[in-house]
């Protein structure tokens, strides 16, 4: 199927398999920040934005993204650096495999809610698993980033 994708502002036109998932498409095109942690949309490491919505790309069919803007961490390097400064100041990125998906979720949260409470942060990010950090350091970082009292 012919698909047009707009990835981080760059236009692509190519033939996609009907059963192809966005995660595979993006990695094939060189967007290696998008990781595969599972294939059941349960871990959040493949999180990206499609048409402004945070979605797990491992279970989002490529054809569904036809003509829609897609954003990966490669497309928000400045914002990611800002989020990253707080995260790395705590040392909480650890192995870093879940970091790009985590950053995408934080970016999406900040667009939707400029002054979230800690509880709102936790709920929004509940789908982003991290096996290294125990999350506490992430919350310390995000509280500073979003100026949660």
């Amino acid at each position: 199927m012919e698909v047009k994708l707009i990835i981080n502002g760059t236009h692509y036109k190519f033939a996609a398999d009907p059963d192809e998932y966005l995660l595979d498409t993006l990695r094939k095109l060189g967007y290696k920040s998008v990781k595969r942690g599972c294939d059941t949309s349960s871990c959040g490491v493949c999180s990206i934005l499609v048409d402004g919505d945070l979605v797990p790309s491992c279970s989002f069919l490529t054809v569904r993204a036809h003509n829609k803007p897609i954003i990966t961490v490669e497309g928000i390097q400045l914002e990611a650096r800002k989020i990253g400064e707080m995260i790395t100041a705590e040392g909480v990125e650890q192995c870093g495999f879940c970091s790009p998906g985590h950053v995408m979720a934080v970016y999406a949260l900040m667009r939707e809610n400029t002054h979230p409470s800690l509880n709102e942060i936790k709920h929004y990010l509940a789908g982003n698993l991290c096996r290294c950090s125990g999350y506490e350091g992430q919350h310390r970082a995000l509280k500073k980033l979003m100026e949660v009292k």
Partner: protein
Amino acid sequence: MSVNKGIPKVDGMGLVLGKPAFTDDLAPRDALIVKVMRSPHAHANITKIDTHIAEGLPEIKCILTYENVGDVNFSRAGQGFPEPSPYDHRILNKTVRYIGEPVAVVAGHSEKAVDLAISKIIVTYDVLEPVIDFESAIDNSIVIHENDGTSSMFEIGHKPKRNIAAGYEMEIGDVQKTLESCDVVYEGRYYTQAQAHAMTEPHSCVSYLDQQDRLTLITSTQTPFHVRRIVGKTLNLPLSKIRVIKPRIGGGYGGKQAIHGEFFVSLVTIKTGLPAKLIFSRKEVFTASYTRHAMRVDVKIGSDKEGHIKVIDMDILSNTGAYGEHALTVLMVAGSKTLPLYNKVDAVGFRGDVVYTNLTPAGAYRGYGAIQGNFALESGIDELATLLNMDPIELRRMNMMKEHETSEIFEIMGEGQEGTAMTIESCKLAECLEECLEKIDYYKKLEQVHEDPNKVTGVGLAIAMQGSGIPYIDMGSAILKLNDDGFFNLLVGATDIGTGSDTILAQMAAETLNVPVDKIIVYSSDTDLTPFDTGAYASSTTYVSGHSVRIAAENMIKKIETAAKVYFESEDVCFNGMDITSGESSISLKDFSTKLFYSENQEQLVSSGSYVGTKSPPPYMVGAVEVEIDVRTGHLDILNYVAVVDCGTTINPNLARIQVEGALLQGIGMTLYEEVNYTELGANRNNSFFKYNVPTRMEVKAMDVTFVDSYEPSGPFGAKSVGEIGIDTPPAALSNAIKNALGKRMTKLPIRSEDIWRKLNS
């Protein structure tokens, strides 16, 4: 000063920004896709594999079965040499011993072609009865390893005919007599379950032949040098023909100590000449990598009526699943890293068998037996206190290890062999205990009554110890290279798997050289480019590899001063990190190093250091947890977890803290939620993140991790290890908290809400 500073991880921002850094990110675009056809039976002999239809399909380049991969027996454990794990495995086995065991390996140009080919392989099995219940494995009529060349490199108690992978026994003093002479004896039986590592990056490996026709492996491993050795030995390749590159690793926790897909991609590349990659699916990670050893721990603790503990006896049955990776050593650590906590005893007994079953193999997992042993021992201490009608905290105060003391166990029990005698030069357990009690407000919380009549609160505590590397076995080394412009390359075999070891090793080099950390460019774990290191396991990197970096840096200072003597034509030179001074003259390191390359007395300055520990100083910690339980449902909430840790100097306090916090949540996950669950036929019931409950960020309300002042004289800059210690306390601390809340002792992990409810309603 660079040490004891919470600087950001050197690779942190790059990872956050999504730079391609992991195995799959670095795979050649044209790599063959390698996938594994897996056994649907827990126990079966393969009588026939027909691959000819699959081989004839388009895009298929290579199919491996047990018939074309050789029949060398080895252990995938990824340990030093000689390995203390039995050689009970072949690259592909003719007898399959768990559901998910590889039967055939297919490589082709696309995933779809490979999937189709796998569906066309016809395997005929002679299905055998499996052994699923580990308590009935010994002397079962079904023998799991029979006539398959299984052997061990030295005596490990390996008795395959009895389904025993390894066994061990030791006794100090007379356990039976001492038990009989005690006023009070507690006896308890505890069960711990198989836990999945669930690292977010699945096991991944890539192989290709380089321009010199050498096999190059990029692999998600904790042990690149062991991978080179084991792959070389098993495939009969000279090690000079293999290069193993460790890129960034997406978590390991022990699960990536062992060899997973490395043989398969290597063979595909050797047979086809083409690059190949194998990335496990999440289902494969759950069903066909490793788990923690499930254990049954029988503990007896005897004391006089004043609470002086006289004897501890521990008897363990451990389940290693289909293969015996880490069987003996995990068993031994269950005793050797718990029993010395109470060192004022007259007698100690420890024995156990590790049995084969037809389940996913067990392997190394953070804590490595200590968490299992700790659950039984530290629950038992609270129970003994109840029998003595005594405060369990006071019982611990009286009996626990103190600084400058020792335990005979250190000398008797090592990992797979005899241990090493040592006196404990840093042990701040007492300080950890008092601080922990105060922070959680233990005695107040003990008395607290919940305002909601349907809820109760409780508080519980446990103490723990771990080690810092394996003495006389774990070896680390480092090379420092001075560059023009005055910066250094630090090349280490130490394997950063996300822990931040690259960063703390750079800090140690900078500290010794008295240069800023950004003058140290660290590169880790590439068997062609970096010196040897046993790998990221056994809590060894900070202590063992750290020393090697310190030594390399000290040697570099000597080299700089020697070169400076020639330059100044004087014996009186001094390097302070920034400048080299001789009398009134001085030159900056920046200028001096540039001269060394381009204009005067040209010489490349390179130094090295290597280190093997002669002891394994334990880090200690005290963990206390406050819980709230809804008695109507058994639902348990963790309100606060306080951990006070003695790991010596924290080289990087931020990273040390995250190590403990992360380990705590893994321990909490094991205690309350996680269990690799099998059907009666041995099929994994929860092989996805949907069904296997890794803790999310909602599970703990608060976590409070602090470090006490401590300095280990034998450690680099006073440091001990911190990677594993954090995982050990949650099982016992939570079980003790539940006991204090409900008056019921939970003795089997995981302790789920429904288990609490059943206990309340039984």
